Every structure is written in C-alpha cells, then in structure tokens.
C-alpha cells in the first residue's frame, strides 16, 4: 500500500498526468475545504482549487516525496488563496443588502446587532490580505497557530503578530464608524 503511494508520488514528480490525476482525486476535497475557509465563497473556492492544482502540476519537478504531498499542497493552496484575496475587489454591495443576507452564527452574542456584524465583516474585508488570512484561520476557523504558520510558511510568533495587528486595525476601522467594540 505504502509502496503504491510512493510510486504515485515518484511518477507525479516525473511528470505523469495519470499520477497527478490520482493525487488530485485523493486531495481535491481537502484542498477545496482549506481554500473555502480562506476565501469564504464557493465559486471562488472552486477557481482557487483549480489554480492550486495547476500550480502543483507546474511545480511537479520541485516536489520532494519525503516531505508529503498534503502539506505541500496546502502551502500552495494558501498562497493561491492569498493571491485571490489580493486581486479581489472590495464588496460593492450596500450595507443594507449585506445586513439582510448576514445570519447570526449559532451561539453568537445577542447584543451584537446585525448591523454591527455587517459593518465588522465589511471592515474585515478591507484589511490587508496577509493579516486577513491569518485572522480568518486563527480566530474565525480556530485553527492552531502552528498549523496556520505551516500553511503560510511563517513562524508561530509571526502568525500571532499578524492576528494582533488585524484585530487592532479592525477595531480602529470600527471606531472611525462610531462603533466601540
């Protein structure tokens, strides 16, 4: 079983499309799930997943089978998602439309109104993508800092600094709108 997996990884490294398809079938769902957590949009997650596997295919010769396919694919997916966040245009919808669509998550603080949630979400969307991705994965998705650090290719300390800066910028943005968290 392990030998078969190693064969697939070695064949992929040599440029075999069949081996690449096998790996795609094994990891498509995981990569899509990871990307969804970052881009938070189903259509965008599909596009970024395709982009991720395209980048994986292009980089096949640089793949090191000993280091595992999944962590490597996750790093590439994270960078593809980051590029998508950088290219994304800010939401053009008006606040009232956004508020109507925004449902409170289960267990959300009842004192936080839909308007505040909407303004927070919009302000969060205006943060620099590097900070947003760290805060999304660490705070919203509640992933361990180590896992986020590995995916972003930075240290655990750097993740914590980015999350702190994201929350501080978010607070400043909300205060400018007259919202005191």
């Amino acid at each position, binding site marked *: 079983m392990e030998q078969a997996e190693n064969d697939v990884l070695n064949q992929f490294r040599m440029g075999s499309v069949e081996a690449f398809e096998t790996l795609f079938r094994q990891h498509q769902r995981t990569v899509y799930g990871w990307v969804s957590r970052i881009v938070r949009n189903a259509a965008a997650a599909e596009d970024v997943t*395709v982009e991720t596997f*395209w980048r994986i295919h292009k980089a096949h010769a640089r793949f090191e089978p000993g280091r595992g396919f999944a962590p490597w694919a996750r790093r590439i997916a994270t960078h593809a998602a980051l590029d998508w966040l950088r290219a994304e245009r800010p939401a053009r919808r008006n606040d009232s439309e956004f508020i109507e669509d925004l449902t409170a*998550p289960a267990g959300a*603080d009842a004192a*936080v109104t839909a308007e505040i*949630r909407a303004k927070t979400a919009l302000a969060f969307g205006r943060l620099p993508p590097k900070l947003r991705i760290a805060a999304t994965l660490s705070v919203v*998705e509640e992933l361990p800092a180590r896992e986020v650090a590995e995916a972003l290719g930075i240290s655990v300390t750097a993740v914590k600094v980015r999350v702190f800066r994201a929350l501080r910028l978010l607070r400043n943005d909300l205060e400018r709108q007259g919202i005191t*968290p």
Partner: protein
Amino acid sequence: MKEDELDRMTKLLKAALPPVGADAEPARDLWPAVLRRMDGRVAAVPWFDWALLAGLLGLAALAPASIPVLLYYL
C-alpha cells in the same frame, strides 16, 4: 490593545463571520477544469516567439529587400 479589548474583538469577529469548517465540498468535479487549464498552457505561444515575429515583420517593413532572404530561410 489590552487583553480584554482583544477578547472583545475576537468575539465580535466570530459573531460577524461564522466559521466555514472543514466539511465544505466542491459542487462539481474540478478535474475537467484543471485539464482545461493545463491544455491552455500547452497551446499558449511563448512571448519570445511573438517578439521574434514582430522583429521579422519590422525588418520586412523597414527593408523590403530582406523579404526574399527571409523566405529563403523559412
């Protein structure tokens, strides 16, 4: 930013953005889209080919006498 402020911002962000979770699945098989992307790349003409073509056309426009020479080498 103090610790309690950090906690409040964390709670506010969680209230504003519900987690997606790890269970999201694509609505369709994405392999055909990946293949299209790969085929598109193979069919793309490298930039230096376009640059060479532009150079040859420029040479032919500036020095029409070079056209028979170029045709000879095609």
